[in-house]
């Protein structure tokens, strides 16, 4: 579904990604792991169209996304929940969700979209008129995921959804992602919380210093000694 081949990305003169190749199949949950500064956010931003890659290709369902503006990529069925949520704080939950259905592909199914999001996150229904600014971190994360879901995506990408969220809520969010996936949406998840990510994903890649340093089935990676040392040691685990 999503194919990335030999992707190079840079900010000005600083090369961030080199020759990244990975793929996400329909119906899969794929995780991208790696330390801070490895380039994970840059990768997601490149796919979502916020950053033009220097070289390589990003193909979604066979179509090259390289030249498309970000909002058109949403129209193709690819939605990103950005790092830090990036919600519209001055607007209500309902308005944020509604804006999620802005793209033409989602406008017709807006009502169904609302139902889906409120079913997944009943808390949000009660707070739908509340200003997003006044919500807790966990609730904001729910709105962020919900907003992306409203665009009726085929592939949902998330950048560090567990960041700054209480552990109990992290489990809840992962469960929601599993439910979303069961409903037919592929998930590409960037996470520093390795146990949570590998507990959810089918497959995973490891990104280090802008390069793919490893990949495999989630279960295999959990047992991999390098991964265990680097990411599952006492300092890396946030549980």
């Amino acid at each position, binding site marked *: 579904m999503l194919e990335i081949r030999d992707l190079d990305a840079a900010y000005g003169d600083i090369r961030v990604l080199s020759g990244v190749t990975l793929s996400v199949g329909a119906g899969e949950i794929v995780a991208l792991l790696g330390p801070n500064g490895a380039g994970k956010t840059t990768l997601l931003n490149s796919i*979502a*169209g*916020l950053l033009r890659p220097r070289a390589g290709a990003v193909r979604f369902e066979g179509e090259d996304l390289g030249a498309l*503006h*970000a*909002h058109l990529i*949403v*129209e193709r069925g690819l*939605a*990103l929940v*950005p790092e830090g949520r*990036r*919600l*519209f*704080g*001055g*607007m209500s939950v309902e*308005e944020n969700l*509604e*804006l*999620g259905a*802005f*793209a033409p592909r*989602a406008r017709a199914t807006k009502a169904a979209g609302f139902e889906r999001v409120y079913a997944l996150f009943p808390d949000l229904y009660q707070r739908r008129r509340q200003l997003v600014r006044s919500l807790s971190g966990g609730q904001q994360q729910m709105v962020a995921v919900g*907003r*992306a879901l409203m*665009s009726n995506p085929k592939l949902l990408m998330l950048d560090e959804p567990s960041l700054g969220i209480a552990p109990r809520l992290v489990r809840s969010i992962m469960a929601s992602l599993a439910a979303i996936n069961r409903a037919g949406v592929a998930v590409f998840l960037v996470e520093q919380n390795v146990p949570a990510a590998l507990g959810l994903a089918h497959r995973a890649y490891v990104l280090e210093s802008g390069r793919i340093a490893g990949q495999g089935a989630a279960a295999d990676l959990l047992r991999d000694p390098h991964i265990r040392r680097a990411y599952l040691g006492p300092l890396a685990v946030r549980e």
Partner: protein
Amino acid sequence: MNILAQQLVLGLLIGGLYGLAAAGLSLVFGVLKVLNVAHGELIMLGGYAAFWTVALLGLDPFVSLLLVVPLSLLLGVGLYWGLFGFVVRADEETRIKNSLLIGFGLGLALHALAVLLWTADERSIVTPYGGSIRLAGLSVPIVRLASLLIALALIGGLHLLLARWRWGKAIRATAEDWQAALLTGIDVRRAYLLAFAIGTGLAGAAGTLVSIGYSTSPSIGLEWTLKALIVVVLAGLGSMLGTFVGGLVLGVAEAASAAAFGGPYREVVGLVLFVVVLVVRPRGLFGR
């Protein structure tokens, strides 16, 4: 006492126009992060458009709004496509600096163009009706009162537009976080275009009301740009209604200072307030 109250009322009446003038500038600055210091010249052009519409077509001055506002919207589209659309390609800091400079050049060019086309003379639209009504013992000129009410209606309409219209919400979202807006599927360039066009439309409306109640000439540009800037800084960004109130505040403050220190110092109080608020509280009185 009555004289002071009278002056304050007149200040309130022009304050409504200050608010309308500032609303357009505030919208454009808030959404595009572009500081169009030629906004006053756009107001001036609106005034002339109204003047010539009335002179050539014989329309009622207030009805000319129905022609001038659409024309101004079109002008806004043209200015965005031809000029400011390029400015928004840069990052925010460069945008503000470039738009300031470009607005400056645009203002000069439009001013010179206006003098070339219509001479430097002042023009005023004379309404077939006039006079004042008595409210609470004060004399309120009808034409200026009507202008205030129209300005209020336009601001109210703008508020509704931003709150209820699909693209109005998109504009607000873009103002908060344009990258998040893109990720939500909003064509941010279209949002920019709409915001700029609406801002120019508001300027045209303000110009029309100015030339009806007061007068227009090529030189009013700088003066009105400053008024709009003062109100934007006083009221802060983000609320159209707050901006309108800021305009009223400026109008009343000017009237009060004229009453206290004499007519010539009317301008100074606004400018001093401006500098003080800039240095002390850049977010303004209402802004977030």
